[in-house]
C-alpha cells in the first residue's frame, strides 16, 4: 500500500514539481494551496505525511501544524521553509513539526527524510524490543518499550512518537551521554545532517512534558560539550 503525502504550498509550480518527484517514487500525492483549506484537506485525504510550507496565505503554517498534530499526533509533519533563521525554525518545530527542510533543498534529501519518517513503527519496535524486552525504569521514568508508553512518577505522559524514541534511545544506555549527531541518526535516521537544532527543540519539548521544572531538568540532562543523557 502506498503512502499518501499531502503537499501544502502556495507556490503551485513547486508543489507540482514536488508531486512529480514523489509520484516517481511511488507515493500518492495530494495538493493544497491555501492555509484555510489545509486542515480539512488533511482529514479528507487521510494523509500519511504532510509537507507544510510555513508562509501561506490565510491561516498561518504554524497554526496548521498545531491543528494537524493535535488531531493526529502520529502523522509526521515536515516543514518546508525559505526562512532559515533559528527563530523561525524553532517556532515551527515547537509547533510540533517533526522535521524541517530549508529551501532550496535537494530532492534526494527530501525523499530520504520522508522515507525515514515513514519507516514502519513496527521495525523500530522490534529493534527496541530486542535490546530491551522489559519495561525500563530509570529514576522517575518508566518506559514501556513494547507498548510505547511513557510514565513519569507512574503517571502516563502523552508524547509524540519521536519524543518517545528520543527517551527510549537514551534509556538504552542510562547515565551515558549521547551526542546530538548520534541522536539524529538513531532517532530520526539521518546520517549526514549536521544541523542539530532539531534535537535541541525536541529535547525542549520533551522536557516541557516530563520535567517538573523544564529550565532545571533532572530527568533528561544536558552534558556540556557532548549532548544529553538520561538518569543521574
Amino acid at each position, binding site marked *: 500500500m502506498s503512502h499518501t503525502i499531502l503537499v501544502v504550498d502556495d507556490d503551485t509550480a*513547486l508543489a507540482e*514539481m514536488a508531486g512529480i*518527484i514523489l509520484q516517481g517514487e511511488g507515493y500518492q500525492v495530494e495538493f493544497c494551496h491555501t492555509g484555510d483549506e489545509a486542515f480539512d484537506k488533511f482529514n479528507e485525504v487521510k494523509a500519511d505525511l504532510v509537507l507544510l510550507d510555513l508562509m501561506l496565505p490565510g491561516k498561518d503554517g504554524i497554526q496548521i501544524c498545531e491543528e494537524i498534530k493535535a488531531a493526529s499526533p502520529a502523522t509526521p509533519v515536515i516543514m518546508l521553509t525559505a*526562512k532559515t533563521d*533559528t527563530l523561525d525554525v524553532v517556532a515551527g518545530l515547537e509547533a510540533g513539526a517533526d522535521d524541517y527542510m530549508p529551501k532550496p533543498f535537494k530532492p534526494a534529501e527530501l525523499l530520504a527524510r520522508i522515507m525515514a519518517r515513514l519507516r514502519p513503527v513496527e521495525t523500530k519496535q522490534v529493534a527496541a524490543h530486542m535490546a530491551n524486552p522489559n519495561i525500563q525504569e530509570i529514576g522517575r521514568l518508566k518506559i514501556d518499550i513494547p507498548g510505547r508508553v511513557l510514565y513519569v512518577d507512574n503517571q502516563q505522559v502523552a508524547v509524540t512518537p519521536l519524543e518517545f524514541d528520543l527517551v527510549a534511545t537514551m534509556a538504552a544506555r542510562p547515565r551515558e551521554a549521547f551526542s546530538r549527531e548520534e541522536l539524529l541518526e538513531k532517532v530520526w535516521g539521518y546520517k549526514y545532517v549536521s544541523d542539530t537544532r532539531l534535537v535541541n527543540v525536541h529535547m525542549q519539548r520533551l522536557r516541557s512534558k516530563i520535567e517538573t521544572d523544564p529550565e532545571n531538568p533532572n530527568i533528561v540532562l544536558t552534558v556540556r560539550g557532548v549532548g544529553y543523557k538520561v538518569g543521574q
Partner: protein
Amino acid sequence: MSKAIDALKQTPVLRRVNSSLQLKTVLIIFLLSLLSLAVVGNYIGSKIADNLFSDRLNQALGESKRTTNDFVSRVDLLKNPDKQTLQSQVNEIISSIQNPSVEATRWFSLYLPPGQKDSWLATTSSNGFDPSKIPTDLHEQVSTGNGQYWKVETLDDGQGMKRPALLVGSQIQLPPGINYELYFIYDLTPQQNTMNSIKTSLHVAGLMLLCLFSAVAYLVIRRVIRPVKDASHIAEDVAAGDYSKRVEITGDDEIAKLGTSFNKMTGTLADKIKALEQLSKVQQSFVSDVSHELRTPLTTINMASTLLYSKRDTFDAAEKRSVELLHNQVERFEELLAELLEISRFDAGAAVLTRTQHSLLEIVEKTRVDIQSIIESNKTRVDIYTDGFDITAEIDTRRITRIIRNLMVNAVDYSEAKPVSVFLAANTQAVSVAVADQGAGMKQEHLERVFDRFWRADSSRVRTTGGTGLGLTISKEDAQLHHGTLVVDAQEGKGSTFVLSVPKSETVTLKEEPLKPLPANQLLECRQWVKHD
C-alpha cells in the same frame, strides 16, 4: 632641550595643569604678574635706596668738609705752635667734634700715615672706632689725592654688631709739617633701617597685588571658560553616543556662536545616523524578502533539473549534454545565491553568531572525511597535526566549519599533488588552525587581494570544484564576526598558508595568534606535533 621639556610635561603636576585651560591661564597670569611686580618693585626699591644714600652722602660730604676746614683753620690760628700747644688745641677741637651731632652717630679718626718721623700727634680716633679698619684703597686715594674721598664699608661697632658706614676722608697738614688723614665715619644704619622697612612694605604690597591679580584672573577666566567647559562635557556625551544632548546658548558672543554651530552639527549627526539606521533596516528586510522570494522558484528549478538529470541517459546527445550543463549551473546558481545572501547579511550587520563549545580537531577531521573525493581526485593527501593540547573553543560551528572547509578545499585544489598539512594549536586566549599547501603559491600583490569579493588568483586556471569567488570573503567575515582573524602568507612557487585564529570564548580578546602563516616545513619545526591519521 625640547626632550627635557617634554619629559617635564609628563609629570603628574604639569599634566594636571596642562589639562585645565583655567588653571593654565591663571598660572600664566600669576607668573607674569609675579615677574612684572618683581621688576617694578626692584626698580622702585633701588631708586629709593639711591636717593636715600645720595642725600646722606651729600650731607656727610658737606659736613665733613666744613668740619675739616674748621679743624685746619683753628690749627692755623695757632701760628707756629709748639708740640704741647698743638696737642692741647687738637684735643680741644676733638672734644668739640665729639659732641653728638644732630643726627646719627659720627666718628672721626685723625690718622697718621706710617713712615713719617718726628710727628707730634699720634693716630687718634673716637671711641668704638678701630682705625685699622679704614680700607687701604681709601688710604691711597686720600694720601695721593687732593680733595675729599669717600667709601662705604661694613664695620664692627665694637659691640659685636656690623653696621654700614660711610667713610669720608681728606688729607691735612699739621705742624710741624706732617701729613695727616682726617676721616669722618657716618653711620648709615638709619638709612639701612628705612630701606628695610620700605622693602618690606614693597614686598607686602607686591604680594597683595599678586593675589588680587590672580583672584581677578581666576574669576574672569571662570566666567569665560564655563560655557566652553559645558560645551566640552556635552561634546563628550555626544562622542559617547548620546546625540540628544545640546549646548545651552546664552547671549550673542563668540561662545554663543560656537554653541549654536555645535548644536547644529550634533543635530545633523543625529539625523544622518538615524537615516543610516533606517537604511540598514531597509536593507535587512530586503535581504530577508529577497531570500524568501528567490528560494521557492529555485527549489522548483532544482527539482526539475534533478529529475531530468536522473533521466539523462534516455535523451539523445545534445539534450543529454544540455541537461548536464543545466544541472551543474543550477547547483552553481544555488551556491552563489546562498553566498550572496550571506554577504549581504554581513553588510547589513545582520549576521548572527550562535556559540557552542566545540572541538576544532573534530571539525577538521570530519571535513577531511567529507572532502575525501576531492582529495583523491587531486591526487594528494591531508595531514592533520595538533600540539597535544585541548583545541576547543566557543564557536559558531556552522561558520567555522564553513571556513575550514573552504580553506581545506582551496588547499587541496591548489596542492599540485603535494601533501596538504593542517596544524591546530592553542594558547591561553585563542585557537589557531593553519592550512598549508605546497602548490603554486601566490604573488605578493595578490596576497592583499585574495579576500576581495569575486577575486580569483588566475582566471585562466581551471578549478575542479567551481567556486564563486566569494568563499574567502565570507570566511574572513565569519572569522571577524568571532573577533578572530584570517590571514595568509605565500611564496610564489612554494605554497600558501592560511591561518584562522579565534578567541576561545566571547569574553576573551585575541592578543596574539597561536600560529603564524609560515610555510608548512617551518610550521612543522616550530614545535612538537602529534599526527592524527
